């Protein structure tokens, strides 16, 4: 399948992270796709069905925004969707507490910010199947000089992710 034909769904949470909306815009401009805000008041069951019905080829979450969706046994609901998934973290792994330890499918990839020792993180979170370092993407507001390289870096990451996920 051509990358441009992929159905891509972003899961963000603007209630907890105010930079998600702006960053989602940066990502969508590179990859295309639609954005679902898990931070609004929509019933989570309905949210899950909404995501499932889209039948996304790729789900991209920021700061584990999709981990709020759980099954009756408290496992990740996203595991039940046949899709490739990228969890992009903008904070160090410790920030996410036990959420990061929830069992993830083999088709999920977790990206942590640079500056963390990747081998140490992989050892500490040995149950997380695919951990890699994320390209530098700034969460700061659009005008900030740090954001200048965002599009280039996102594109670089996206190409690499598609290769890894065999998309």
């Amino acid at each position, binding site marked *: 399948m051509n990358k441009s034909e992929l159905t891509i769904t972003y899961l963000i949470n603007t209630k907890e992270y105010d930079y998600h909306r702006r960053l989602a815009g940066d990502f969508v401009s590179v990859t295309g796709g639609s954005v679902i805000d898990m931070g609004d008041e929509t019933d989570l069951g309905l949210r899950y069905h909404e995501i499932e019905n889209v039948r996304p080829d790729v789900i991209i979450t920021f700061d584990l925004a999709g981990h709020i969706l759980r*099954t009756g*046994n408290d496992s990740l609901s996203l595991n*039940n*969707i046949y899709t490739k998934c990228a969890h992009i973290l903008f904070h160090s792994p410790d920030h996410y507490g036990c959420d990061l330890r929830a069992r993830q*499918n*083999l088709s999920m990839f977790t990206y942590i910010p640079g500056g963390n020792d990747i081998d140490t993180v992989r050892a500490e979170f040995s149950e997380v*199947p695919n951990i890699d370092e994320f390209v530098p993407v700034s969460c700061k507001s659009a005008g900030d000089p740090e954001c200048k390289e965002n599009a280039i870096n996102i594109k670089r990451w996206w190409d690499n992710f598609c290769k890894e996920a*065999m998309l």
Partner: protein
Amino acid sequence: MKLLIFEWAAGTFTYNDIAESFSRHGISYKTVSYQFNNKNEDEFFERRFTKLLKDDSYDAVFSVNYFPLVAVCCHKNSIPYISWSYDNPLDVPDIEKTLGLVGNHVFLFDRIQTEGYRRMGYTNVYHMPLAVNCERLERIKLTKQEERLYTSDVSFVGRMYDSMFGHYRELMDDYCKGYIDSVVEAQAKIFGYWFVNEMLTESLMKRVNDHFRELQPDTQFVLPKEALAYAVAAQITKNDRLILLNLLAKRMKVNVYSWTNCDFLQNVNYMGSCDYYGQMTKVFKASAINLNITLKILQSGIPLRAMDILGAGGFLLSNYQPELAEYFVDGQDVVMYESMEDAMEKAIFYKEHEEIRRRIAANGHDKAAVLFSYDTQLCKIFETSGLAF
């Protein structure tokens, strides 16, 4: 020993109890999960799972239920693969292509199903009844409020099955419709013997599929015998469940716990679904009678639901199952019925005789605890597979 556990993405009922047993025996393990779109073909999975196998050193791969691509990866990497299924049928198309792979050790809880595969030459398929973690279930206590909520004369936890039978039947010619209706009618009356597979002959399946193509010349669809057999089983089971629950509800309080309500249930209290690891055990403990109405295609084995009831110390009223009768004494450890009338009579009798009921439930629980602990069954599984436990 170090294991890699492959777990179906949606989770499996027995995983936690199995993992607990592994930990108790000092077996280290790593668990990975995946959601398949096609259980027989998935290049991404094969590549990633193989990488996992190569990145570390595992003595074996273990899974609840059987996954052909796990078998393929293990075979290619010369790592033993042990699977223990609580699903029946296994829902794996073309299972014959991988079942016999060297290094595969497949454990099924239904003896007749196992013997069927062994007769086909798959000597690496073994019979292993399911297990129950009585200690965990004993720790689950009910509050006064929960007792009020879950108490009933009869409880049933299970699916009401949406069968494809009606759809398949609609596409048959008149002869096949008559034939299949007769098969369903006859099988519905028989408890403890499943003869539908024998009745769905090659010539019948050819006639069914030929007629499909007459109706829709462009169709690529071919109805496999297994799919029709399952549809028949689901249809009969659904009818069994509806009939018995409705009959019982005329005489006593009946609670049904299921994912979906069924319009055909009358006077039955639909209680929604209940979670496996907590509520279900409470339901079994609080109910005077716990019904087990087995999926008809399950020919001899003791289904997980029956084990769950026994382990919780609940009183089990089940349809006749050969292996249940083999390990448990009818009327002493469990109670089995052989017809709807028999089920009704027994339910009415045991509802009124609490002391006898309690004694039978205690006997069933104690026997299940001794015969079917996870430690015991897993030890047998690993020994059979040539690995120490």
